[in-house]
């Protein structure tokens, strides 16, 4: 049935504002008499904060105030899934990555805020920096979070230490051992992916304003999920949700990066503290260091195949570098694992996945959420196998491809909308692929 507006190239409703420069992104807003906010961040990736002296910094002309944990000792930690990230690091406690906030500088001018930031004195007791999750998994590795409850299940690999495992998930479908026995050959490889920045062209930025008349903090800043950011900010500040109001601006790209709280909390504190409008704009460097990354995943994949080109078993072990805080890690790493076979029929699947704390910038959401990394592994495996079989890679994919009735590694039976085979047919047609494809 033909539709009038659906299926049509209706022009983007917000495009005109964007091509004329009228669209207001967070840093484009203008408030009278606003204050500039800058954040003093960690000076070492893993260290105990021994002393934090802001007295000289406060003397800088134009500085309104500098807030530290001492001023707000009752703040709760924040985070998308697990609340493990401190709003401000307390003296005597640890900084866990270079993005940790130590102090909020509030000043009349940006220059004053920058000058003051340079004058904050920090003393630390350095700890071993764990930049590699393999090291963090060793049994003698220091623990990055002492106060996080044990989120692991009981199915941990006996060879690894447990102290830095943020979360583990597993897959067990069919009889994997039998599947490998039935295979004519097995292909086993290890794949590694990297830290990636989502790199939206607009860096994190925002304004906040405290409305004394109704005790509401208003925040204008981009968020991929207004109500979740609101809830996270409110719980961190021990406020009812209604007291935190977040107003969306135009968003200059996100790709997962604007799921986590960024400027919001520090702005909220500064606005309520000063009762004046406050503005915080991250630099590109600050954005890259302090906000989430695509997780590097280490993926060991083992695939059993018959000589006529069918998959009998698939096993993966996935280690994800979660960095210093959980963010979306508990979901990202295992979502990657859940997609470990790609869109191909495999009756027997086993998987183990671990999200591991390190002192790197934390991993979070980015387009594909773990499955992007996993696809590099499974589609490499598939290609390697097709070459070993001396079979057309398109045909090999096609004959193993999901269809209605296939079951995923999670045992989800696909009842409808499984059009993979048509995509193989169409893409190879477009490319004028050599070789015929058949069932």
């Amino acid at each position, binding site marked *: 049935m033909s539709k009038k507006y659906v299926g049509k190239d209706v022009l983007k409703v917000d495009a005109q504002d964007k091509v004329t420069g009228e669209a207001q992104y967070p840093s484009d807003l203008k408030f009278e008499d606003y204050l500039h906010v800058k954040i003093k961040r960690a000076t070492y990736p893993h260290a105990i904060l021994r002393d934090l002296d802001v007295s000289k910094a406060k003397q800088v002309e134009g500085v309104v105030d500098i807030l530290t944990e001492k001023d707000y000792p009752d703040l709760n930690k924040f985070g998308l899934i697990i609340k493990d990230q401190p709003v401000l690091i307390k003296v005597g406690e640890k900084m866990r990555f270079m993005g940790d906030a130590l102090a909020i500088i509030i000043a009349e001018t940006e220059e004053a805020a*920058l000058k003051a930031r340079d004058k904050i004195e920090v003393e630390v007791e350095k700890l071993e920096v764990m930049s590699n999750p393999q090291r963090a998994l060793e049994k003698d590795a220091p623990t990055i979070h002492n106060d996080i409850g044990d989120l692991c299940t009981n199915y941990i690999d006996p060879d690894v230490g447990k102290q830095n495992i943020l979360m583990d998930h597993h897959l067990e479908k069919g009889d994997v051992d039998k599947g490998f026995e039935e295979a004519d050959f097995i292909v086993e490889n290890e794949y590694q992916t990297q830290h990636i920045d989502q790199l939206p062209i607009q860096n994190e930025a925002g304004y906040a304003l405290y409305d004394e008349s109704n005790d509401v903090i208003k925040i204008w800043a981009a968020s991929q999920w207004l109500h979740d950011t609101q809830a996270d900010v409110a719980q961190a500040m021990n406020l009812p949700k209604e007291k935190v109001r977040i107003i969306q601006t135009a968003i200059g790209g996100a790709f997962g990066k604007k799921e986590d709280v960024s400027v919001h909390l520090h702005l909220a504190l500064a606005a309520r503290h000063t009762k004046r409008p406050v503005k915080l704009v991250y630099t590109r460097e600050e954005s890259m260091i302090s906000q989430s990354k695509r997780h590097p995943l280490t993926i060991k994949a083992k695939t059993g195949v018959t000589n006529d080109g069918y998959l009998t078993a698939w096993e993966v072990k996935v280690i994800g570098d979660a960095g210093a805080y959980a963010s979306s890690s508990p979901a990202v790493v295992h979502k990657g694992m859940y997609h470990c076979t790609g869109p191909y029929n495999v009756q027997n699947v086993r998987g183990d996945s671990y999200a591991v704390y390190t002192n790197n910038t934390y991993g979070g959401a980015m387009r594909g959420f773990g499955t992007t990394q996993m696809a590099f592994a499974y589609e490499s495996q598939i290609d390697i196998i097709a070459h070993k079989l001396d079979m057309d890679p398109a045909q090999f994919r096609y004959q193993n491809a999901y269809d209605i009735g296939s079951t995923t590694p999670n045992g989800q039976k696909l009842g409808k909308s499984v059009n993979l085979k048509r995509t193989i047919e169409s893409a190879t047609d477009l490319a004028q692929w050599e070789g015929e494809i058949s069932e």
Partner: protein
Amino acid sequence: MKKQSINVKNKLGTSGKDSDKYFRPESKEELKKILEDYTDELTVIAGGTDLLVANYKNLYKIEKWLDLNWLDSFKEIKIFDDKVEIGSMVTHERLDKLDQIKEHFPVIQKAAADVGSPQIRSRGTIGGNIVTSSPAGDLLPTLLVYDAKLKIISKDGERIVDANDFFTGPKQNVLGDGELVEKIILPLEENKSKGAWVKVGKRKALVISSISLALNLVFDNDNKIKDARICVGSAAPVPLRIEKAEQSLKNKKIKKVNIAEIAQIVSDEISPIDDIRGTAEYRRKVAYNITKSALQEVINQ
């Protein structure tokens, strides 16, 4: 209809006349006066495409600015019988687009076209590229293969320095306090010359080179190589002339040159480091390969 570009000396402008932190001399005399008064305190800005990057969020710390953009004499390109003088404030865009540069110094033109982006080429200057003295500065190897000399001025006078002697280390050079590069002097060869430029970077635009190579061969009337200059960028603390390779090219007919041998010399002579743009090992391999392709390009010209 296109608008005519506005002369930078438009009388509308008044800046620098009322500040003791920012100076913009409009003549060499004014410049000299400023240099006499403030030698050690000045931060010199040309195109700004390096300075403003290096001082991002720290610009307020700069005590006194000396802006060369109003010195029209620094923007001149003068062609003599035996040389071309390029003012240090000539932008990459002009080097890219000027026919005279393309005709006499095609390697410079190609390198200028490869600098950054239109936005960088429109502001960044040849003098700025030289004074920043990055081993990755795109123009530097090309200046060295044309045997460029630099005219350096200061309140005390002037001196001429061989471009090959100018660079002393990464972002280091022979300039003293209060010294400026006024112009670049490029000798004009009577003989026929052929050149090549290779820039290797991890993407096609807006990229700092992983390694670059400039080549210029001058031929005598017998079509023998009279003079050879090879210079590699991003492969040593300074843009590096490979004199051993140059010597072994000299007095040969190009077709007789053992390309692989020259390439091996280049690869051996450089002293690259590992950094974000490439490993030392990679640079040595690529130096070998691009030397071969550059020589081949010249042979095919």
